[in-house]
């Protein structure tokens, strides 16, 4: 039963990774940018949600939504202000700019919020769980995270495949020049894609902050896990990213079951194994690619 339990807990943990990874996947799918500031943004969102919930008497859900909206705005401005310009500077420029941003954000957080670890209190929800059978129970909050991840990925997928803006976004991704000829403002489309991605990162960061302790430097791990989920799942596929997150989560909890220190290492090993054996990922390219 301990192994079944490890797998189930891994799937739940994977929900969190999928939530963290879908923004990274979307930005790459639409713009071919790998946002190295992804993890730093997630942690910043966790701090913002924490700050809002401490400074105001608003319910946590409202703080989370507010922080998501703020970050969506930040994402739009980031794309229009910096990244669109960086995209014109060749392949290296967006990487270098987002890496610079990550270092700036992490060190600013360190100065403002100190390096002490924090967490967002969610009261009884953190510990409440449903017992399925003896030795196997499911945490309510981690189940909620998984549900939110699936719902968010489903919504983004629907948005991309069914709405006019989503179609325009896919067209821009396929060929910005041709899309421009059809009257689509590609810079605006890129801005919207980053807004959605950074908004989702903010939600993911807040959920992360509610489930674990975080520090300004925690974003490094977030970026690595999100990246592993994207690669395991297959580039440019949002459902693949969900699958990748789940596989990574299971690998880590099963690894930790073998030996507590091996959890993260097992995740890396599975990632490298996928890279060696099936480099296109488990679910390579679908509509959004």
């Amino acid at each position, binding site marked *: 039963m301990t192994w079944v339990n490890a797998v189930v807990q891994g799937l739940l943990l994977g929900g969190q990774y999928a939530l963290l990874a879908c923004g990274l996947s979307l930005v790459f799918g639409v713009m071919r940018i790998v946002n190295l500031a992804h993890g730093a943004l997630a942690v910043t969102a966790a701090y913002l949600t924490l700050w809002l919930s401490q400074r105001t008497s608003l319910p946590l859900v409202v703080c989370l939504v507010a922080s998501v909206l703020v970050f969506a705005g930040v994402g739009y401005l980031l794309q229009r202000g910096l990244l669109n310009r960086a995209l014109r500077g060749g392949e290296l420029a967006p*990487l270098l700019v987002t890496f610079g941003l990550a270092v700036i954000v992490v060190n600013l957080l360190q100065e403002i919020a100190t390096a002490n670890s924090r967490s967002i209190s969610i009261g009884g929800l953190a510990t409440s769980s449903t017992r399925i059978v003896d030795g196997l129970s499911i945490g309510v909050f981690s189940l909620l995270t998984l549900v939110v991840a699936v719902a968010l990925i489903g919504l983004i997928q629907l948005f991309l495949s069914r709405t006019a803006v989503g179609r325009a976004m896919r067209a821009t991704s396929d060929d910005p020049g041709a899309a421009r000829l059809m009257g689509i403002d590609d810079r605006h489309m890129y801005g919207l894609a980053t807004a959605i991605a950074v908004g989702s990162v903010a939600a993911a960061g807040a959920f992360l902050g509610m489930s674990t302790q975080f520090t300004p430097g925690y974003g490094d791990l977030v970026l690595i896990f999100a990246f592993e989920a994207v690669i395991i799942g297959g580039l440019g596929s949002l459902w693949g990213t969900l699958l990748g997150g789940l596989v990574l989560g299971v690998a880590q909890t099963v690894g930790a079951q073998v030996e507590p220190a091996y959890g993260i290492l097992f995740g890396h090993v599975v990632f490298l194994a996928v890279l060696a054996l099936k480099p296109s990922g488990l679910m390579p390219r679908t509509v959004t690619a």
Partner: protein
Amino acid sequence: MSAAKEAPHAVVRRGGRSSVAGAAVMVAAVVVLAVWVPYNVSLGGLTQLVGLFSLIILATTWNLLAGYGGLVSIGQQAFIGAGGYGVIYLADAVGLPLVIALLLAAVVAGLLAFVTSFLVFRLVGGYFAIGTWVLAEGFKLLTTQVDALGGGSGLSLQAFSGTDRVTRIATVYWLGLALAVIVVVATYVLMRSPVGLGLTAIRDDVKAASSLGVHVRRWQRFVYVAASAGAGLAGALIAVNALRVSPDSIYSVNYSAFMIFIVVIGGLGTIEGPIIGAVVFFVLQQQLSSYGTWYLVALGALAVVVVLFAPTGVWGLLTRGRLEMFPLGHRVEVDRPAAAGGGRAGRRSATRA
């Protein structure tokens, strides 16, 4: 036929008077660093200068990787760590002389890079970047699991026990200076060779280079291995200078941040850029160390601004491509006094490399 006699005769020049002057300045600087500085700077100052030498090695090799090979890695700390652990293990546990251990540690780092390149080379662009980082995290986690490497707490270098402090610091200083000079000169010689020409082509346009018969993958792998061996050498130097290694500091992603900022601010894709950048970074680090992490915020902001608004870096801004201390380009000039104008035109169309 007098017309044939006066036909313009094109010659290819590499460098000129300015690069001879530049090279003279560099040689003078190295001589001052080798002969004057050790006797006039405090021991603490010398130890810090060894830090500068390792930064120059790191930046030069990262520039080889990203500036010429087109491979942005943020995981070179994997090989810094391998070099750092390698030199202490080889010197203490195996008992090799320090210089041999240092060079062998670099070879080990290069071998590790060769083996792992078959994994990370399946990724391109930004995903290659993060892939190398995962590799570095993997190296770190594996290192902490090995008892012979001191687990989570690291190793201390014993090889110097019994040597007095002055001799030790002077030895490491001269060793560091020699290694930095060797790495820079070797990079320069490499870039002057046909291999360098192929790498420059890869940097400018991968598809065009490949269609002209440049073995893109082969040379990228070569550059990855060479740059990682350089990172291993720098890591070994860092470990010997600090007398110890620990997993969290030697495998720190901050090294990648430093390398990237140094090269980007100094000038990506030039030999001079990383050296200038390393000196700028070193001075900033010394001056701003009392402001805590603010100097990293400032450096990050500076790097972003440079990438967006001055992609040629400080060196490019200062010289506008007119001065090359390490000339790599081929300038076609018309060797005829009457065709001075043509010579200028030829100069303008010269390849930048």
